């Protein structure tokens, strides 16, 4: 079985790991680096649970081969530290009951942060459209949408 060496930055730390070419980034993160905050759901790019940041933008780690991430910079849910947008989203998710079992939450938060930064004027319809690639089987989405909208509204108020 062939193996390849991959050097990538994960949550600001450089890592060099041996992987099988068929290994997905999600499996590298969970199995090799023990970053189990990245969840694997459908494994075909539909449910969004595995969403992480690759080179600054959200991407599916279940259909991105580890080998293709050689030289890339990856940020997982463990890597947001005191990022102010993520802190606001975490608080809003708690307040609005935007999670129950928590399986979809890491992917939800990564995508929600991207919406807040990329689409500061998004309304409810746009938030729902943008979150459509992340499935939640507990909340019915109302709390999630409310949480994202509340962070957007707070940031607009702060900027005004």
């Amino acid at each position, binding site marked *: *079985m*062939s193996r*390849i060496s991959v050097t990538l930055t994960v949550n600001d730390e450089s890592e060099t790991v041996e992987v*099988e*070419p*068929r290994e*997905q980034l999600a*499996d590298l993160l969970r199995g090799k680096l023990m970053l189990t905050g990245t969840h694997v759901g459908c*494994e*075909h*790019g539909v449910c*969004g649970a595995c*969403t992480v940041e*690759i080179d600054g*933008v*959200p*991407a*599916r780690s*279940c*259909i*991105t*081969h580890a*080998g*293709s991430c*050689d030289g890339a910079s990856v940020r997982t849910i463990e890597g947001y530290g005191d990022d102010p947008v993520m802190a606001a989203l975490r608080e809003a998710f708690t307040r609005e009951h935007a999670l129950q079992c928590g399986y979809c939450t890491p992917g939800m938060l*990564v*995508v929600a942060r*991207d919406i807040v930064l990329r689409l500061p004027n998004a309304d409810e319809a746009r938030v*729902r*459209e*943008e979150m*459509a*690639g*992340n499935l939640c089987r507990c909340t019915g989405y109302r709390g999630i949408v409310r949480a994202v909208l509340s962070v957007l509204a707070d940031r607009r108020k702060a900027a005004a």
Partner: protein
Amino acid sequence: MKPAAFDYARPKSWADAVQLIALGARPGAGTQSLGPLLNFRLAQPGTIADLRHLPDYAGVTIVGDVLRIGAGTTHAAIEDGAVPGRIGEIMAGVARRIAYRPVRNRGTIGGSLAHADPAADWVAVLPALGGTAIAIGPKGERRLLLASFVLGIFETALAPDELLRAIEVPVLPAGARWGHWKFCRKVGEFSKATGCVLHVPGARPRAVLAALDGPPLIIEDASALLADSVAEARRIVATVPDLAPWRQALAETALRHAAKAVS
């Protein structure tokens, strides 16, 4: 599931990439379609040649009166305005509704077109916009018309030893009118029926009906569709063999809505 084992190659030049393909490697770009097929073990290639690091694979350049779009340009880049002008506006609107943003950040226009899923967005839209695909093989580059690039389900006019390097689309006048309608039961899923119409002032309008069981249907002169969309959509859809009644209804609706947007 996890994919069956394969080898991974990262060619540094187009010549290396072409050589790998000639030896039977499967090209991979964003792997947003190939990745799921590998995970389901529907595809079990011996080697994947990762094209993402080839020179000029992504990016848009203006060459005379055409725009050359590198095959590795992501849907998200197009959504964010990488393609300038009126055709860029049209393409940005299409790109925004491909799958989901995390998929668009990785998936590429060339990968999607070469994969040739009949329900994919660029498979439907690019034949309507016109232009050419630039293929590269052992004998160098050759040009293929986008209108006849997709031949069937997962089947293109590329030879087995060729790669899709770039796409060239025409610069459109500001007054070019565009209609595009697709039916998805959920935001981001594959289309069940897609219609598009491009009408450049002074030229014949062109329409496409896609998300069929084969290649997109190109209507080179869609004047009749613009004049009487109800009757003409019905006539066009009736020429498509073996469509279930619900798909006929959606296909007619797609053409009617696309036509309405330009008239």
